[in-house]
């Protein structure tokens, strides 16, 4: 199943946020979206996931999702969006409650999702008892439970410390390794984008337009090797040079706001 951003334009009142953004995320592909602050990255992701109506254009799907997918487009939120009154297990089961699945089927999906994210021993814990990294693992586990075709990740690591970010990035690389699941990954962090994405969509300053789509010239598996680091760093520098001046302007604009 492909996800297509088809000429998406969006305005909040008089404020133009996105201007004619078009690209396609192929099955199993990971596309990162980067750009200066306020360029509309998160707005674009909300539109792609059906949580915001664009002013014009539309998000579209091409092809059928995998037959076992319960929610083909599934978000992983920056702030985790966990139900604080529910245990880890109940949070992961939450999106399954309204489906036709039996209790045993739900249980099997929850068990599998918890196992894949290393949360099996924490199933009875409440979110407040967990670290930020563990909370985001619950968010990822919840997303995996519905067997998504494409994960929509809105800066999923930005609220976490650097060590936890690194550990979770390793998890993302592992979870996306087999190509069974694609992702749209919104981030400020160019290193994360270069590490995870097959292609990187670079947006301009508001209103966000596509400045460039950069293809990462190596497989994700190869990026862990020492020889690849230099190439990745060069790629990050190339993208940074594209957005640096606009990032400075955007920062000044935010300060003046």
């Amino acid at each position, binding site marked *: 199943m492909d996800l297509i951003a088809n000429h998406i334009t969006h305005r909040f009142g008089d404020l133009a946020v996105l201007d004619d953004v078009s690209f396609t995320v192929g099955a199993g592909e990971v596309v990162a979206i980067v750009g200066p602050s306020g360029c509309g990255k998160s707005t674009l992701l909300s539109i792609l996931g059906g949580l915001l109506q664009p002013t014009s254009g539309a998000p579209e799907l091409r092809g059928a999702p995998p037959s076992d997918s319960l*929610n083909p*487009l*599934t978000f992983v*939120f920056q702030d985790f969006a966990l139900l604080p009154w529910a245990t880890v297990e109940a949070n992961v089961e939450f*999106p399954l409650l*309204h489906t036709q699945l039996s209790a045993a089927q739900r249980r099997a999906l929850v068990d599998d999702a918890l196992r894949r994210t290393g949360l099996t021993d924490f199933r009875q814990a409440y979110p*407040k008892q967990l670290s930020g990294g563990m909370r985001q693992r619950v968010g990822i586990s919840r997303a995996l439970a519905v067997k998504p075709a494409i994960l929509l990740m809105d800066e999923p690591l930005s609220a976490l410390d650097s060590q936890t970010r690194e550990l979770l990035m390793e998890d993302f690389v592992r979870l996306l390794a087999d190509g069974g699941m694609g992702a749209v990954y919104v981030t400020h962090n160019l290193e994360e984008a270069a590490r995870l994405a097959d292609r990187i969509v670079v947006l301009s300053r508001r209103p966000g337009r596509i400045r460039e789509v950069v293809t990462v010239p190596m497989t994700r598996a190869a990026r862990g090797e020492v020889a690849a680091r230099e190439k990745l760093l060069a790629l990050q520098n190339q993208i940074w040079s594209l957005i640096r001046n606009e990032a400075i302007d955007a920062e000044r604009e935010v300060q003046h706001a």
Partner: protein
Amino acid sequence: MLDRAGLPAKDEATRRVRFRGAGFVPASSRYGGWIALALVIAIWQAAGSTGLVNALFLPTPSAIARALYQLAVSGALWQHLSASLLRIGVGWMLGTAAGVAVGFAIGLSRLARSVGITFISALFPIPKIALLPLLILWLGIGEEPKIATIALGVFFSTAISVYSGVDAVPRNLIRMAQSFNVPFATIVRKVIWPGALPAILAGFRITASVALLLVVSAEMIGAQYGIGAFVLQAGNLMQTDQLLAGVVILSIFGLAVGKVIGWLETRLLHWR
């Protein structure tokens, strides 16, 4: 190896950095409140026993205890208390049920919000006891106008606390649920209701006080039985020990309600 270079020699003069505090964190002592209460009662008793305070104006705690005991033994206590409890119970439940329903409607529906908030803003500030004569005209002399007064007082506070609670449910949780195509009814049941519960329970504390205030006021205006009627009657007869016994009953009732709500909070909001 641990680098100890630069540490002062034994005979070298140093000054310790003064501790300047760790923020204001008032810790309550476990027995402090009880000790203070016992102390006040002891002073009060001594002041009355020694004739320092006229017993007609302020009877001693022991005299109040005796009055309470006599009330209990004679059965009058139960007669008055049961009348008040019935009015509070029925009035509070009616007001709460209506308040929760209207509060949720205002919290969830644009139409209900625009209509409901206007009416609530206009009617909430009215002292509900002022409506008792009108309610007597409408509903007759009996339990109904007193219960209706309590229900009205409880309704407005409950509706406000419920829609404030619904408003306070983090929007990201609702968006999360929508992103999983969770139906509206399930979102209300599994996200909005538990999310609003802290505010709703906090509202219960307020409405319990409102109900107590209104039942006493209503009973003082027109009732033969009830704690309010009893207190008024005792005041008219200058039986201040009986009057204060009634006040003690009200205080105990308020404390008991607070304990029940505290227990509910512990049970239902343990996740906080």
